[in-house]
């Protein structure tokens, strides 16, 4: 019997397929990881913009996460920059919030990383360790148009990105958390406006508890049932402790101090609220519900968030709302806030176009870029001084946007050991969750957490 002609054809096709696959595989693995040294060349950029426009613009990529609305806004930002000069063309690469860490790390792993991007808690440790962030210091030194001192609270916003006198990224936005409150509901129950108490310095845990108890009492079928949802993530986890005068969860020499008496006092206070059901812990109602949802529906009195909820809450018409810092605990001397996480702008150390990337970077983190990004419908605070009006424009929707600006100056950013070691972070998150689920006594759980961190149990 003869071998079928079709079979021969099939063999040939398959062999070609396999060979081309093999070729594709082998062409990939010859990339050595030599880190490029950035040449301080800001001046060249200035000069060459004056030169006749080149045939083709330099193409830069930019990765940033966002929800669908935000993604439209970032596309507009890239276009705004591309249109205002004729040398650089910026392409925005969209990404969903949840997928960001995985996306950027795999992009680096497969050598198709974007030229510029945001780096957050999740990916920063790996990127710093593998030297993927371009050292910006040479540019900052020679570029007269960039002044690092024009940023608000710079030593906090750049905490992880300044080491050995070098700068690796700039935080172009800030999002300190505070409490949104349902003004109609609270004043309707006969209480003083929390913002007035804050101004008078009497906005304390005790006042908060009084309101919460009354809100809880007034709940019926259609009325609110909880004063507050303790959302199950690290921002709200830490805030009550910080509002009790805790400055950091680590000692000056880097040892964990989650069992500090002030922390334990704060946790004991929350546990009491959880037990009398004025606070509901978000994780104990399952996924798919957070404080934001219920606040919008008028079912809770307070919601904890940064400015990111303003665009959503703007749509509320059923009641009036406003913002106020977290109330002071017994040990606190001042109001405080917490910016949950780093979102800082960085340049890829492997980019082929360092000068162009810096030009885009400087615009992006500067006044023009921040105005473009955080102006209309902004969901965070600009970090460069002189743009306060952008936030104050919120006044059309709630009375005291100034509170954001006040709190920004004293906001604490995450501790380096927490943010830079995701495994340690998980231990901490689990311990707080254990307390909030009422499955561990605050003192002993926090003691255990500190000893677990010290003994390296996370690894």
């Amino acid at each position: 019997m003869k071998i079928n002609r079709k079979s021969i054809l099939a063999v040939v096709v398959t062999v070609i397929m396999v060979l081309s696959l093999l070729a594709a595989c082998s062409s990939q693995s010859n990339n050595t990881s030599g880190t490029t040294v950035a040449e301080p060349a800001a001046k060249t950029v200035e000069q060459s913009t004056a030169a006749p426009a080149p045939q083709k613009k330099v193409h830069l990529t930019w990765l940033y996460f966002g929800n669908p609305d935000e993604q439209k806004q970032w596309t507009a930002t890239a276009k705004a920059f591309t249109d205002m000069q004729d040398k650089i063309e910026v392409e925005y690469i969209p990404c969903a919030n949840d997928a960001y860490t995985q996306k950027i790390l795999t992009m680096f792993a497969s050598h198709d990383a974007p030229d510029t991007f945001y780096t957050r808690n999740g990916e920063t440790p790996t990127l710093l360790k593998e030297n993927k962030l371009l050292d910006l210091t040479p540019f900052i030194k020679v570029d007269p148009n960039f002044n690092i001192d024009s940023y608000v609270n710079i030593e906090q916003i750049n905490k992880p990105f300044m080491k050995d006198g070098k700068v690796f990224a700039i935080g172009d936005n800030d999002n300190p958390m505070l409490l949104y409150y349902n003004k109609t509901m609270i004043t309707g129950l006969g209480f003083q406006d929390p913002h007035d108490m804050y101004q008078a310095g009497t906005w304390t845990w005790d006042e908060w508890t009084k309101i919460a108890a009354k809100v809880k009492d007034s709940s019926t079928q259609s009325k609110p049932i909880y004063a507050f949802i303790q959302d199950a993530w690290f921002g709200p986890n830490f805030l009550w402790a910080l509002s009790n005068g805790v400055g950091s969860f680590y000692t000056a020499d880097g040892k964990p101090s989650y069992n500090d008496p002030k922390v334990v006092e704060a946790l004991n206070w929350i546990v009491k609220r959880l037990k009398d059901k004025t606070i509901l812990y978000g994780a104990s109602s399952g996924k798919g519900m957070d404080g934001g949802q219920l606040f919008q529906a008028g079912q809770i009195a307070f919601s904890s968030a940064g400015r990111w909820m303003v665009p959503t809450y703007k749509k509320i018409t059923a009641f009036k709302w406003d913002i106020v810092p977290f109330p002071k605990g017994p040990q606190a001397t001042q109001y405080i806030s917490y910016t949950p996480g780093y979102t800082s702008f960085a340049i890829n150390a492997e980019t082929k176009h360092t000068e162009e990337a810096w030009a885009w970077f400087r615009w992006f983190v500067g006044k023009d870029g921040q105005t473009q990004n955080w102006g209309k419908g902004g969901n965070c605070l600009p970090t460069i001084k002189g743009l306060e009006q952008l936030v104050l424009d919120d006044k059309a929707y709630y009375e005291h946007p100034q509170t954001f600006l006040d709190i920004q100056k004293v906001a604490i950013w995450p501790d380096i050991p927490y943010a830079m070691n995701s495994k340690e972070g998980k231990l901490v998150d689990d311990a707080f969750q254990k307390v909030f689920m009422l499955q561990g006594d605050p003192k002993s759980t926090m003691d255990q957490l500190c000893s677990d961190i010290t003994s390296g149990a996370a690894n």
Partner: protein
Amino acid sequence: MKSAKSYLNNIAITFKYIVIVIGTIVMVFPFYWMILTSIRDASLSYRIPPVFNPTQFKWQNYVEAWTAYPYGHAYINSFIVTTAVVVFSLFTTSLAAFVFAKMDFAGKKILFPMILATMMIPFQVTMVPVYLIMRSMHLYNSLLALIIPSSIFNASGVFLLRQFIKGIPNEYCESAFIDGAGYFKIYYAIYLPLIKTALISLMIFIFIGVYNDFLMPLILIRDIKFYTVPILLAQMKGMWTTDIALSDAAAAIAVIPVLLVYCFAQRYIIEGITLSGLKA
């Protein structure tokens, strides 16, 4: 005596129907709740006790869910991936099934148990290596990454079709063989038409499996432009924490195609499962 017995019998039968109907309600209720939530304002879903009957028909939710997210795009992606996998996979599995059922060749005794063994190994075990393989073949983050593995690797499909072909008498093969037909011709001219039912069953399994697959696109697709329907839906779950009505409308939109296919092809699904299960 007899009437007492039939009386008891009637009670038993009534009880049986009650249990069956309750079970049916349990099965259908989540679908009902999905539709109910999706056609009313989100605020109506925050009532205590919950409202069980439809009081409002806000079809606008569907329009909003469809427009607010690149749903059209995800549908096209899902369509491309499912169609491609169905076509290629049916071709390759039936070829392999034919060979295992009707041909004797060196290595059959090793290869067939190997195919059977891989049936047991879940994708969860191999997801990291498959991701690495896709990356090194430059297929990561492309629709091909979803198409290729399922198209050329489907052990249970090969097994199912082999069972069918084995059941067809050898005489067909032998007479064709005497006529001088090649194996490929015997495969497509004689066996393929005979296993049409099995092919349709398998086709529907593959369709449902690939259309609903969540884990594979989760690890192999990165860009929103390559998202398939389930992965888009999963992402949206995080985005619209504020609007339960919209996310349920989106879920309903995702469920509709597969339920339609199911309605029309129910018979084949049941036949396919029955045969694969009983002959295992």
